[in-house]
């Protein structure tokens, strides 16, 4: 599948923002919320900015962005519509959460209610986004249980890394933030490795023989293409990445998305002062970079059944 940058940025950034907002809400519900206005409000706003930037970026992907409001209507059948509705719902609650830090009462019931709603809404939104991909039968490398689990864990992991960077940046030591990031990273990398193992070994969901129905005659191979130049289908669904590049990019994603950030977090846990703050921030930044590579691969490695008509043997 063609890796559209708008969608890659959208899923990585909004995932991180939703993970961050989820963790902030958990902190509030658990009563472990740092006292200053500045930390809480700015972290919540970073989360909202990430979600908003992602949503804006996905708007560029549309052919008719001015009609985007129509996408709120079909939530009964469409995962994409559900995503739009939930994204729009998260925003006001996120703003209310940020506003709560400026209030007098850190234990105000309404604030806890807002946090409680976000604890449900944020992971639900990430899951619904992942289901857009996981529900597509013609793309077997997305249509599996690994996809939503991986998306949820990446959102949690990158949200935790940003939360820890904010905590250290505002001068809080907060070791649990660092440990949580490490634990999430270990689980997330295990799931991603499982996903890659799955897509490398899965039996084909369809073949050129079933796509044409000519399997009874024998092996099917293309003779003449229907058109001499590229068309929309080949541009959108025909993108393929060479196996050796995929292997290299998987290693890059593992290093920048998991190994390097984990090392920076470990450094931040051991160090103090500005070194710890810098290490925690570097952890979050490299992780987002690594996740962008991972998400690019998620698209580039996926194969669509339409390519069975254009010379691919099995998908």
């Amino acid at each position, binding site marked *: *599948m063609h890796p559209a940058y708008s969608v890659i940025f959208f899923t990585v950034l909004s995932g991180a923002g939703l993970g961050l907002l989820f963790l902030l809400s958990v902190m509030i519900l658990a009563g472990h919320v740092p006292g200053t206005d500045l930390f809480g409000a700015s972290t919540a706003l970073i989360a909202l900015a990430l979600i908003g930037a992602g949503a804006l970026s996905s708007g560029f*992907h*549309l*052919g*008719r*962005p001015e*009609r*985007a409001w*129509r*996408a*709120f*209507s*079909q939530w*009964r*059948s*469409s*995962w*994409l*519509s559900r995503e*739009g509705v939930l994204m729009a719902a998260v925003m006001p609650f996120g703003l209310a959460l940020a506003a709560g830090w400026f209030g007098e009462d850190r234990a105000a019931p309404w604030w806890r209610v807002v946090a409680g709603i976000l604890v449900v809404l944020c992971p639900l939104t990430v899951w619904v986004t992942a289901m*857009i991909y996981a*529900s*597509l*039968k*013609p*793309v077997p490398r997305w249509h599996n249980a690994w996809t939503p689990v991986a998306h949820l864990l990446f959102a949690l992991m990158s949200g935790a890394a940003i939360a820890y960077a904010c905590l250290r940046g505002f001068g809080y030591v907060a070791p649990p933030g660092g440990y949580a990031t490490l634990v999430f990273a270990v689980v997330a990398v295990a799931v991603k490795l499982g996903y890659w193992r799955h897509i490398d070994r899965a039996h084909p*969901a*369809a073949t*050129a023989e*079933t*796509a*044409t*129905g*000519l*399997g*009874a*005659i*024998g*092996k*099917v*191979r*293309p*003779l*003449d*293409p*229907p*058109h001499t*130049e*590229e*068309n*929309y*289908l080949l541009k*959108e*669904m025909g993108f393929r990445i060479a196996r050796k590049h995929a292997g290299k990019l998987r290693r890059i994603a593992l290093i920048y998305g998991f190994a390097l950030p984990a090392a920076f977090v470990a450094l931040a846990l051991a160090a103090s002062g500005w070194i710890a703050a810098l290490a925690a921030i570097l952890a979050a930044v490299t992780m987002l970079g690594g996740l962008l590579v991972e998400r690019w691969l998620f698209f580039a490695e996926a194969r*669509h*059944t*339409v390519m*069975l*008509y254009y010379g691919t043997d099995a998908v």
Partner: protein
Amino acid sequence: MTDLPKGESAKKLGLVIDLDTCVGCHACAVACKEWNSGGIAGPLPDHDPYGAAPHGVWFNRVHSFEAGEGTEGRTVHFPRSCLHCETPACVTVCPTGASYKRASDGIVLVDEDKCIGCKLCSWACPYGAREFDDDAGVMKKCTLCVDRIYNETIPEAERIPACVSTCPAGARHFGDLGDASSKVSQLVAARGGFDLMPEMGYQPTNKYLPPRRKTSAPSCSAAPEPAPASIESRFLKWVDRVLSR
């Protein structure tokens, strides 16, 4: 609403494509392009039409495949277009309600005024039936010539899809596949018509008829040697004798 119509639609208009008869002339694709450039889905983009790399939107694409090996091998021409599925995920994934399946006859259409061009429907179609119109910013697809088949301003004989009307080999048939007694249904039953990629579970309405099995011809070695013609004329017999000396 992008919910599918409740229950099976009684009428299932669709195509039956005979892979035995198709000669791969692309006339159906051209006729489709011609009609739909001016029909309800038109205009269809054509970029660089006379240049080195022309490309644009077509609702019908004719592939040619080889299947099997040796004397059992076949060349099969294979037109590919929207199959107007019974459970089309291209419809249910649509976030705006632009994609819909008609309850009255099962035709799958796009309301271009509602489409936001998110392209998700094209990802959801296993068959590559939808192509994006980058001029209009909306998705386009086969309409089963809905603007012909119900069009009372054209002669009744022409109220069939353009691809069917133009096919010089008679390889394309149009009718109601929901009616077991219709000509197309009987054709499917008689010839063992099949679904493309049934494992996807989309339940296509359009059916394909398989190439007929080859009738076994005697092989070259088994054929008798042609006998020399017996010579009747006396003169020629004499010539033969003289020359045979």
